[in-house]
Each structure stands twice: as structure tokens, then as C-alpha cells.
């Protein structure tokens, strides 16, 4: 079975406790369903860690290049940390531990998280041009999420690493933007599954820090700041700062590493100058040219006049 074939009916059959479920979205190695649990609505992400039928997820999978104990332990730890990060801009974890399940050949881990009733930014961006005050909200809310991840547990600072419009949702009830899909243990997953070619969309949001293998630099929250810069650039101008149609992946990476994006206001003249300054600075190739702290970035957003320039 292929991950894309996992539908609500399959889930209901294999995880009867949570039935009935409904499909709501898909990511690279992931299918997300909606379900009811103890009378409340939850999102149910299913993460496929292997499609090898012989993998058992009982810790004895090392011969398949997968340390499943470690994968499960790490995902559990991350869910636990997320539980401690109390921010309205991070998706909340639900009342269930990370649980393995085998669906035919697929080895899957699932857990519960807050179901966000609203639209994701990828979808919002393809509709009308976003108003400046809403773009500013995206900036402020995602920065708070980056800050919460980095600072909620000093012994375990978290980098999201996969910020992209599909991972940012807008809560319809409050208008707050919420970051999804935090730091899942992709790098520990089965090689064949986590192959970049199988993660469409994500390469667009790679950062120079991730692509620069020569410097062995340690990444920190400023890597997420860069990805936020890409998101804000797209939200403001409708264009990706580094990608243009028919670019190969290699060319995209070169562009992320070296190209200087066109100034925001060339493409969106009514954007305030302060917003352009922030976005361009977030897109700086070197982390030390971005912002030293999330607070200083929030201060900068504070100075953006969201009525736009006239």
C-alpha cells in the first residue's frame, strides 16, 4: 500500500477507537485526519516511518536501517516538549501518547493534536492578495511560535526546520496563526521514505544554513527566521524570493545560497518600508545578519505601520 491510499476507511479499520475519522490534509510522509476522542474533536496525524512490510516497530528493525525504538522515543520526547510549550501559536498536543500501528506494509506512528478549524496559509495566499495587517500578524505570530520552541525548555532548544505556508494555519475563531508539524524526527526515518524527492514543496523552504555543508555550523532559531522571511516575502508579493518556474532543484539551491531577492516594494509598492526591511533582513544568507533574538524581531514588527505606505 502507498501512503496516499491511506484513507478514512482504512484508518477506521486499523484504529477503531478513533473511528469515524475524516481526511483533512496530507504532507510528505504524513496523512492528517479529523476524529472524535472523549467527546472532543482532534486532529490525528499519521506519520509513515517505513513502507517495508518486514519492519515491525518493536525495536528490532535495525537490519532495515531503522532504529524504531529511537524513532518512537524521539517523537515521544518531542511531543512531550511540545506539551510544555504553552503558546497560542503552536498547535497543542492531545491526550494520547505516540502510538505505533501497522497498516499492511506501512509502519505508522500516530498521536492526537489540536484540530484547528481554519485555513492554512498556503491556501490563504493563493486567494486574494493578503492585507498588510494580516501579513504582520503572520510575522508576529510565527515569531512567537519560533520563540516558544527555542525558549520553552533551556536544555532542549527546538528548531522547527520545516516552516512553510502549509504548516501555518489561521484559527478561524480568533484570526491567530498557528504553527503545525514541529520538528518531527525526519532525519531518523527510513532512508527510502525521507528521500528529498518524496517531500514535494519542502525544498522551496530550505535555508542557506541547511544547504551549507561546508561550514558545519550549528543551526539555531535564526534558521526558522529565514524560512519565515520566505513565507512573508511570498505572502506580501505573491512571488517566491528564490524560485521561478522551471527552475531545477540545483538552481533553486544555488539561488537560496547566493541570489539576492528583488526588493519587496518593487513587487508590492504599498508595502511599508519597515516591513520590507524586516523581510529582507530575515532573508540574509548569514544567521548573524538576521535578528539576535525573537524579541528584537517582534520590536521591529511593532514599528511596522500596517496601514501601508501611501
Amino acid at each position, binding site marked *: 500500500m502507498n501512503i496516499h491510499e491511506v484513507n478514512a476507511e482504512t484508518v477506521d479499520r486499523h484504529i477503531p477507537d478513533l473511528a469515524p475519522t475524516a481526511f483533512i490534509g496530507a504532507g510528505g510522509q504524513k496523512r492528517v485526519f479529523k476524529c472524535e476522542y472523549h467527546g472532543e474533536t482532534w486532529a490525528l496525524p499519521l506519520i509513515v516511518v517505513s513502507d517495508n512490510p518486514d519492519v515491525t516497530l518493536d525495536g528490532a528493525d535495525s537490519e532495515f536501517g531503522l532504529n524504531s525504538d529511537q524513532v518512537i522515543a524521539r517523537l515521544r520526547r518531542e511531543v512531550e516538549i511540545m506539551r510544555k510549550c504553552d503558546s497560542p501559536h503552536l498547535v497543542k498536543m492531545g491526550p494520547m501518547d505516540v502510538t505505533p500501528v501497522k497498516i499492511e506494509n506501512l509502519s505508522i506512528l500516530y498521536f492526537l493534536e489540536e484540530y484547528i478549524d481554519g485555513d492554512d496559509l498556503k491556501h490563504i495566499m493563493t486567494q486574494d492578495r493578503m492585507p498588510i495587517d494580516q501579513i504582520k500578524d503572520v510575522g508576529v505570530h510565527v515569531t512567537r511560535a519560533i520563540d516558544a520552541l527555542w525558549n520553552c525548555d533551556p536544555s532542549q532548544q527546538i528548531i522547527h526546520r520545516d516552516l512553510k505556508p502549509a504548516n501555518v494555519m489561521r484559527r478561524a475563531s480568533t484570526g491567530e496563526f498557528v504553527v503545525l508539524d514541529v520538528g518531527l524526527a525526519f532525519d531518523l526515518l527510513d532512508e527510502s521514505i525521507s528521500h528529498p524527492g518524496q517531500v514535494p514543496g519542502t525544498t522551496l523552504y530550505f535555508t542557506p544554513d541547511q544547504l551549507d555543508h*561546508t*561550514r*558545519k555550523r550549528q543551526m*539555531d532559531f*535564526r534558521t526558522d527566521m529565514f524560512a519565515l522571511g520566505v513565507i512573508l516575502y511570498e505572502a506580501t508579493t505573491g512571488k517566491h524570493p528564490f524560485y521561478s518556474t522551471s527552475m531545477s532543484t540545483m538552481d533553486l539551491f544555488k539561488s537560496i545560497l547566493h541570489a539576492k531577492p528583488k526588493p519587496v516594494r518593487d513587487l508590492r509598492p504599498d508595502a511599508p518600508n519597515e516591513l520590507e526591511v524586516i523581510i529582507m533582513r530575515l532573508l540574509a544568507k*548569514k*544567521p*548573524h*545578519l538576521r535578528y*539576535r533574538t525573537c524579541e528584537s524581531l517582534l520590536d521591529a514588527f511593532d514599528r511596522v505601520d500596517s496601514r501601508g505606505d501611501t
Partner: protein
Amino acid sequence: MTLLAQHGWGKTLKITKALGSGSIGGLILSPRDETPENAAAVLESIAGDHPDATRLFDPLFHAGQVVPANVGKLPDYSYYRPNLARRDFIGASKFAGYAADVLGFQYTLNVTSLVAPTIELVNFGDSSAQIALQLADASSTHHASTDDKRSLLLSFLINENALQSLDELDAFLDAITVMNADGYYLMMSRASSTHNALIEPSRLAALMYMVYILRVVNGFDVYCGYSDLIGLPLHAAGATASACGWYGTLRRFTFNRFRKSKGGRRPRPRYLSTPVLESILISEMDQISQAGLIDEFISGTSYDNDFRTKLPFTVAWPDEDAALHHWEALAAKVNEIESLTVDDALKKLVDWIDTAEAIRSEAEIGGVQFEPPSGDHLDMWRLAIQQFREMAELT
């Protein structure tokens, strides 16, 4: 006022005079040259007379790297560790101990900021950089655990050769820009013993870039020790303050300061001529005077008027006057650029370089023979400014 006195041996009344006249804005005290009691008293008395003066105490922890060392009164300080070797930097508790001792002593002093211990950083990618980072980190952790609300300056003593490798500098800057501190005290350990102002352009550009990234982009205070004239390009790049002392090893850092001196001859007297951005020899001043060009070289301080009217070699030029003149002249230049944007300050600096070269050419045509490598730094600075502009994308 952001020129500071780099304090050392034989302070006499120079510092109080210069503070009184406003040509320096404070000092960086050297424990090598004062007993602990005196150091405390000097800082206390300056705080009393000049409450706004910047008062720093450079612990000179790195002097412990020199063996055998000529470290003056440093052994009187309880935090001082002689004969520092690799084994002294193994284990986190050692770092925590050094930080606690070095900062602990300073908490008792009337200083305006605390200065963290460091060792010489030979290469941004090697173990010396790791040790320097660990000392900085331990200091930041220690300071955050105390009730002392004064600002903390992390300190780095960078061998000028390290400034050659820009990729490693970038990674280093990535690391220190997220440290929990108020500012940085940067020193450059010089390889050559020639002219203070002479420096490989790429190294000066890299140091300017460090200053710019830390101060202008990331908002840390940046104090540059032992800078002399090189303080000018560093101020142009955004430095909060630079420090300069009254003799050679207080104007340019080399580890010779902590080695037994071989005696040697007394340095020949010099005069800081800000129009040519250089300390020139009094014998050169004589030739300039004979060529009728002295006015072009005069800095115009409260000490140098006699050079206008008398033959330079007849002017009484005691060391103390030369030092006070040096500060006043340098401070005037610093003041001219310190409130400018980086772009404007760099333009002004290039103007000064152009003027200096024009004045020198005029003098050379008039028969003045400058002793090499006099003047060579001007082109180096010009190149450094260009390289720095490219690095900082200020073109």
C-alpha cells in the same frame, strides 16, 4: 566621548588630566600595573570625580598563557592563573570556576561593566576558539546567576592571523551573536612589531566586519582595546569605544607585553599628526618645518602649539605631553565620525586618507624623506574599507 585610556605602567597624572580635559571618556585598567588595593582605589576615585566615565577592568587572564611571564602584579590577584595549559581547559567546572573568580573580583570594584576572561584565539576553527567561547559562555551563565545588574562584556583576544579565514569568522559570529551579554571587548593580538597603523587590509576589513555585525546589526556594545589609530576605521564600522595607551604595548597588543623585556633602546619621540593619520618622528617634523609645511601637519591640540613657532627638535616634548596630545588629537577624530552612519563615516575616513596622501606628496616634493614604512597604511586602510563595504553589503 568614546576614546578610553588603555591603562598600564606609570600612569602618573595623565589619566586624571585627560579625563578632566574631556579628551578621554574613561579607562581600561590593567591589573598587571597596580596592586589590587590600588586598582580599587583608582577606580573609586575616578568614579568620584567623573561619575560618567567608563571604568573597565581588563582581568588579563590571557597573560597566564605566557611562560615564563613578566606579569607584574598579576600574581597578587586571587583569580590569576599562571602557566595556563591545555589541561586547564578540560571540564565545564574549570570554566565555571574561572568565570566566577574573574567576575567575582570585579563585582567588588567600582567598574561600569564587567569584563569576562579570555585566552588568545589563534584560529576561529580550532580549540583556542572553543576555549574562548566556553569562557565567554561560562561568564555569561555566571553573571546571569548573580544579582549584579551591571552590563557584561565578553572578551576576545584575536590573533590577527585568525582574521584571514572568513568562513570560520562567519561561523564564529553566528555563535557569539546569540550569546547572552551586553557587549564585547575585542582585542587584536598583533603579529608584527612594526607600525601600529600598518595592517593587512583583509584583516582590518574582517575586524571592521566583526565590529559592524556585533554593534550595528546585532546591537551589542563593542569596545576595542589597544587600538590607537586603527580605532578610527573601527569607530567608522560602529565601535562603541576604542582604547589607546601611552606607550607602544598599550597601543598595540602583543604578548611581548607579558615577556621579559630585553631592555632595548628608548623609542624615538613621535608626534601624532592627525592630518596624515600617523605618528611621525620628530626628526621628520624637522624636515617638514624646513620645507615650510608644518601647518599642514599640526593636529591642533592644547599641547602642540609650539611646533608651529619653534623648530620641532627644540620643542620640549615630554612623554606625558606627547601622550596627552595623542589622546586629544585622536579623540577629536573619533568625535568627528562617531555620530555618523557607517556609510558616512567611511566616506569621511576615505576623505581623510585622500587628504593625508595629498599632504604627504606635497611634503615629499618639498624634499621631506619619511622613514619607511611611513604612510604605507593609508593604501591598506583604503583597501580595507573597500573590502569591508563588500562584506557588509554597504556598496
